[in-house]
């Protein structure tokens, strides 16, 4: 109950903060339009060169898949790595450790709160714009779509937070986590389908995207394809497996890390 109350307070406070300072929303919007827009223009051209179909997938499916990736990325869950590193480097972790809260859970809710306002606004307006410009693929009008989209979105968010928290927690052992962050982040981007929609992956790459935590954190990009209707429970199962496994890794890393905090002087 206390956790939920604190989580709600964090979300409310940060939404209020973002409303008061709307420049972040403007920056996020420009970022999505620029990155997603450029990719869609390029893919539109490539699909056109191939008579509108590549690997059995039409441009409409590719558009929505890529859009879901960028919409999810507006939450900026990846930034938790940098936040944890900053907490450790600046000593802010000491301040947070002296509070009656779970540091990691606080940091995770804080990360969700930081991006949720931009995420909701951008997703609503961009979805409406895409429906108006491109239309909806038939898979997105099926009854199973919305509930499974929400389910895989939540699982993907938890998995992303765990994945990037592990990278952040490495700051307790290594001075600069940026090289590790770069590798993980690029693995998520590529296997998540930001550069190339997952439906266009060669078979072995698709398997890696399916079975690795990097790809699993972005299964939201799979929801628009016809295969989702048959495989969604398998994919959500893979997400749950990684959530449990990475959750345990985060837990044990954090327990070790806490001992290091009490040893270092000031």
């Amino acid at each position, binding site marked *: 109950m*206390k956790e939920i*109350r*604190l989580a709600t*307070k*964090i979300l409310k*406070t940060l939404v*209020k*903060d973002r409303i*008061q*300072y709307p420049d972040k929303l403007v920056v996020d919007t420009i970022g999505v339009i620029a990155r997603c827009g450029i990719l869609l223009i390029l893919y539109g051209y490539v699909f056109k060169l191939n008579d509108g179909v590549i690997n059995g997938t039409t441009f409409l499916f590719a558009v929505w898949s890529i859009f879901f990736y960028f919409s999810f990325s507006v939450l900026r869950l990846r930034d938790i790595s940098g936040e944890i590193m900053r907490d450790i480097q*600046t*000593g*802010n972790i*000491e*301040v947070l*450790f*002296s*509070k*009656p*809260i779970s540091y990691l859970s606080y940091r995770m809710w804080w990360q969700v709160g930081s991006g949720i306002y931009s995420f909701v606004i951008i997703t609503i307006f961009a979805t409406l714009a895409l429906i108006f410009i491109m239309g909806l693929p038939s898979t997105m009008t099926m009854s199973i779509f919305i509930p499974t989209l929400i389910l895989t979105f939540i699982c993907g968010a938890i998995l992303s937070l765990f994945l990037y928290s592990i990278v952040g927690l490495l700051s307790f052992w290594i001075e600069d986590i940026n090289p590790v962050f770069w590798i993980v982040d690029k693995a998520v981007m590529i296997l998540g389908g930001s550069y190339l929609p997952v439906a266009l992956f060669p078979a072995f790459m698709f398997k890696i995207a399916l079975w690795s935590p990097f790809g699993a954190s972005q299964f939201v990009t799979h929801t628009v394809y016809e295969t989702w209707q048959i495989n969604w429970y398998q994919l959500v199962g893979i997400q749950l497996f990684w959530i449990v496994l990475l959750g345990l890794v985060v837990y044990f890393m954090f327990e070790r890390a806490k001992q290091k*905090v*009490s*040893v*270092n*002087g*000031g």
Partner: protein
Amino acid sequence: MNSNSIIVSNLTKKFSFSVRNTSSGWLKNLFSPETKEIVAVNDISFSVKHGERIAFIGPNGAGKSTTIKMLTKDRKKLAYQIGTVFGQRSQLLPNLPLTDSLEFFGVMYDMPEKEIKKRIAELVELFDLDSFMTQPVRKLSLGQRMRAEVAASLIHKPKIILLDEPTIGLDVVAKKSLRDLLLKINKEENTTMFLTSHDVGDIESLCDRTIVINHGVVMRDLPTQDLAKTFVYEKYIDLVALSHFNNFPELPEGMSYSSRDKNKITVVVDINKMSVQESLKKLLDLFEVEDIDVYNADLETVIRHIYERDSTSN
């Protein structure tokens, strides 16, 4: 009922780290490095009574922060009873008005909404926060922000407040104002204060007891006012010239010049070697003076003496 807020018994902390052995190869250094052990805190024991104001001081690397971190190690249990103020780190929400930060901390400490509102009203009055409650925290002056930091750390009515360099960077007026406030909350809410600071003014004006730590060991634990008389065997004597001091003769053993010019001389007397009375007699034989002032070293000098003595004795 136990009258102690904190009881520390035989607290020890050792930590080890790898050291590179230049005579070994990189592979041996990587997989089987030599380790060096450091005793950061060595068998420390002390207790702190409810409402006491303690200064916990020592040179850099003495083990102060390690001790404090160990005191709060089981944080989840203790957190409700402890408030923390870090002079160099803000815990407030920078973009939002102070009210939001106070409400936020109230929720963090699991206080009911009604109680949060009541406590905020109390703190606003106690700390005179009303004039800047609606301003974003990042627009506050440093003095205002520190008052706000202390108020935020007291939202849950902690029994103990840990203050780490609370007045760092403040001007003299803001320093005094913050110290007065801290004394006020100690008096009105009987909050135990545990202060670490390099600012002697903080120690002098806030703390009635001082614990000096060095090399992980408690070197001194005594009332702050006794620091000077117990540990400094020096007196300072100012002599103001009747007209001008024209020459500065060599002083007898036990006395030395601290400063000298034609209008005023300051002499340091080692009271182990010479009494004040004797030194005054000798000085009056040597100089024609209009005024004399005898005084102890200030607390900063006292603390420096203790640190220097401790480091040479180790």
